[in-house]
């Protein structure tokens, strides 16, 4: 059984992945400098997810591991998605009542007020 996970990935593939990751890094920095509105974050995360997929599939041999391992990996991300999606389900559908971003924070004991700003 373990022989399945013993697939040896050739250094050529590693080098190709390395190149792709570096290219992705440059790309994400360049993309951030263009104003795409809300699509900036979408693009940045798409690149990040792609890079992560490459690392998992090749560097971590995810592509060659058993179905059981794949299931474990998938369940990790599935649970993360549960947490993010359901919590956001609350925050994105809150009442249109006075929201906390409209409230001014009270200058309190741990907060500090900067010493005047001159622009």
């Amino acid at each position: 059984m373990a022989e399945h996970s013993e697939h040896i990935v050739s250094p050529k593939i590693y080098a190709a992945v390395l190149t792709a990751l570096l290219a992705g890094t440059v790309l994400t920095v360049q993309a951030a400098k263009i104003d795409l509105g809300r699509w900036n974050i979408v693009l940045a995360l798409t690149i990040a997810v792609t890079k992560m997929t490459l690392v998992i599939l090749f560097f971590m041999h995810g592509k060659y591991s058993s179905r059981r391992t794949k299931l474990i990996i998938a369940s990790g991300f599935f649970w993360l998605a549960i947490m993010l999606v359901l919590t956001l389900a609350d925050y994105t559908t809150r009442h249109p009542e006075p929201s906390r971003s409209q409230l001014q924070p009270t200058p309190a004991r741990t907060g500090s007020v900067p010493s005047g700003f001159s622009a």
Partner: protein
Amino acid sequence: MHRTGELYGQFQTLDQQKESATLGMWVFLITEILFFGGVFMAYTINRHAYPTAFGVGGNMLDLGLGFGNTIVLIASSFTMAMSVWSAQTSRKKAVPVWLVATLALGSVFLGIKVVEYKQKFDHHLIPGHGFDITYCSNNPSACGLSGKALEDEKKEIEEGIRAETDDPNTPEGLARGLIALNAHAQLYFSLYFGMTGLHALHMIIGAGLLLWLIFEGFKGRFDANYNTPVENIGLYWHFVDIVWIFLFPLLYLINRHLA
């Protein structure tokens, strides 16, 4: 393929032992996903609430250092993968060499991180009593700011204040905007230090594990028949790399097009 190495009493075969170890590492990594998931959650919610302040905060980070660190860490992931490959193909001499390269790159990453933290400290960007988002624009010489960079930062803070205030037309309103911006930027920097700090902690643990691997690697212990530790620590190292792959765009690249 014939495995060697010590068979622990609880197992029947070496294959079973190796399979358990690898599977165990993966299960550990998914707990790590959820662990970091908690901070990412906190980040998401707070950024959702204060996009402007997070943009202002993000632009106070040094993009060059962050970019450099990303490159360094990706390279270290590659060298780590190569050390696993060397072990799998029984290149016993090469294993510790690649491991040393990985450790060196990891140390460079941590070194750059220290420089960055020091910079934030000097710029009064540590959350708490001394926090002042306007410190650099008020004391440009202390931060080495001048020319266009200074203008940009001033402009950006002003825009941030206008976005955060309820009334941009009166001095009182602007003062309230500044207080709000300063507060919300502290949230950003708390998350910045929390997230990168946790990541750095994982790096330090990883470096410790690498040291042990290097020690064993020079003894020539890892080959095609016995390489579970290299493989598992490799998995861990790649995971830490993945965390950074997300941290970099989320912390450094929020609003770069404004600057």
